[in-house]
């Protein structure tokens, strides 16, 4: 089987990253924004794994990093959802446009 070149994998991860960024900036719904952030994190994970495999095949650092990031992303999602629930309780919506108490 022919190997996929590194550049294509990087292309995929870059695309994933900017899709995530687009989502983060355009969506008003906090849950969607959280999903977009997860997309960005995963694009980074792909980068780690790809560079590890292509550049330093005899090392495992990149893989472990990915494992750590997955763990932390899970924790972070839990915290973020707790925040979102609290926001919903106080504002009755999870639309970021409605939570502008920090203005000025």
């Amino acid at each position, binding site marked *: 089987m022919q190997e996929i070149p590194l550049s294509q994998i990087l292309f995929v991860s870059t695309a994933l990253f900017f899709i995530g*960024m687009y989502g*983060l*900036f355009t969506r008003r719904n906090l849950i969607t*924004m959280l999903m977009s952030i997860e997309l960005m994190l995963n694009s980074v994970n792909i980068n780690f794994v790809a560079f590890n495999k292509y550049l330093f095949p005899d090392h495992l650092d990149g893989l472990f990093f990915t494992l750590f990031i997955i763990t932390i992303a899970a924790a972070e999602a839990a915290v973020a959802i707790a925040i979102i629930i609290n926001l919903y309780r106080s504002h009755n919506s999870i639309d*970021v446009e409605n939570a502008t*108490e920090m*203005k*000025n």
Partner: protein
Amino acid sequence: MSNYLYILWIPLLPLATFVILGIFGRKYLSSIAGLLGTASLLTSTILSFVAAKQYFFVDGKVNGVYQKIVALKYTWLEFAPNMSIDLGIIIDPISVMMLVVVTSVSLMVHVFSLGYMKGEERFATYYAFLSLFTFSMLGLILSSNIFQVYMFWELVGVSSFLLISYYFNKPAAVAASKKAFIVTRFADLGFLIGILILGYYGGTLDIGLLIERFTSVHSTQFLSITSASFLGASMLTWGLTLVFMGGAGKSAMFPLHIWLPDAMEGPTPVSALIHAATMVVAGVYLVARMFPVFTMDESALNIVTYVGAASALFAAIIACTQTDIKRVLAYSTMSQIGYMMFALGISKNGGENGLGYMASMFHLFTHAFFKSLLFLGAGSVIHMVHSNEMKDMGGLRKLMPITHIAFLIACLAIAGIPPFAGFFSKEEILTAAFHENKIIYGIALFTAALTSFYMFRLYFNIFWSKDAPADNHHESHGEGPWVMKLPLLILAACAVGVGFIPFSQFITSDGAPIETHIDVVFSIVPVALSVLAILLAASFYKNQNGKSDKVAAAFGGLYTAAHKKFYIDEVYLFITKKIIFPFIGQPIAWADKNIVDGFMQWLAKITLKVSVLIKGLQSGKVQNYAMYFFGGIVVLSILFIYIWK
């Protein structure tokens, strides 16, 4: 050399009492606060008697001369090699003598206060402050380093402030405490500068070393301090005069005396302790401590002499006209301290020439007992009639027999009638003055007569003058409980007995005992003058006959001036209110408000402006913040990739 370390406990016990009563006193210990304070002080007193016995009779003497012993030395702050602030304990004749005086007078006051202050709301606080004062006074006495003296000196000032303003809901007491604090603080500024001058030229702050260096004429330190001069006086004169200024402030010497009469607003036992027997003699003690250095400089000693003599005379004249019994006693204290000061001033160092020094210390010793007795007696009287004014008293001798006898003994002692204590010490001072300086002798003699006059004016006004008060509500509580009578009796016994101590065997300027004897012929004049003054007072005041008013009218202006305390307070008020406040205080206040504060406010304004400008960036929209964040990352990436490769 034997061990004197246990002396450390003498000041530490009152300190511990202060801490315990200060923290727990009001809530938990208010019923036993007095007993606790008295018990700890009793222990201190016993320890100091043990120390005195050990020092004077067992091992203080080497080859017939009392030694200076440094019992403890601990380097506390070292700012340069050989230049450090040490904490130490010095044992020499005067410090041991002062230990005995301070602890025993303080003990008497503690016992007396058990009765006098009973039922006060802040009883525990009162005892806490008394303990703090006793601790700082004992610390001052034992200090081996002049900076350590200064620290305890300030502590003494603070505790005096606290005790004067004990009745803090009385405006007069608050004003008096502030006055006492500010006046003595002002004097302490001089003291500090004096310490710095002596320390700078002497290269040390240790009292023993300073004395050693400044008394040997060939030492480099002595040469440098005497050759440097400022405004026509050598730096040695300046340093000693400034140190004396600190002493004059605490000892209420003219013209820094104005706080002492007002300080009588404090509770009477406090006046007995602080403003009669212990704190006010700190100035005398300080001069005595530095005495060998003072003898190296004629002009500084002359200042001590004349300030002392002027205060003695000045205060005695005022005392003749005051009507508040505590104020009379305050001026009498000032006058007696003046005595001690000029006795030091006319003295020389060493041998028979050091008679003045020994006489001064002797007078300090006897004065502490009879003056605290007078104050405690006055306390008893005030406790009974609830007034400080002479006109509310009279005829009390039947109602208060014990107080009457004690007060009479103290009056005879201060008047210098043999065989009471004051006679012996005053004779020594007069003898020394007669040999050294005839002018001073004249002033001293006149002051002695005045002293007898105003003391017996006080005595007759309180205990004779009128018939016993008709309304008998006084009878109900009599002379007060035995805790108030016992100290009077003990102190009265001291006022009779302490004069017979062969003081010159123990305390002299150089430690070697000298021989003194009472010259009967010499004593005739002062004693006769005192007796005459007493008879004069008796004829004026024993019965109300109006003679005194006629004499007062005959003196006219002088009487009014003395009654108004020679307008010294008014002079101070004029200087501060009319000169210092508008010409110095207000420009400085202006500069502080407009320049110092102005700069700070300008900084605050700039910060406010900037924050208003950048406030718009805070949109409150979380996505905008994310945008800035990514924008920042992009900028950083460009910087790292293309510019700082």
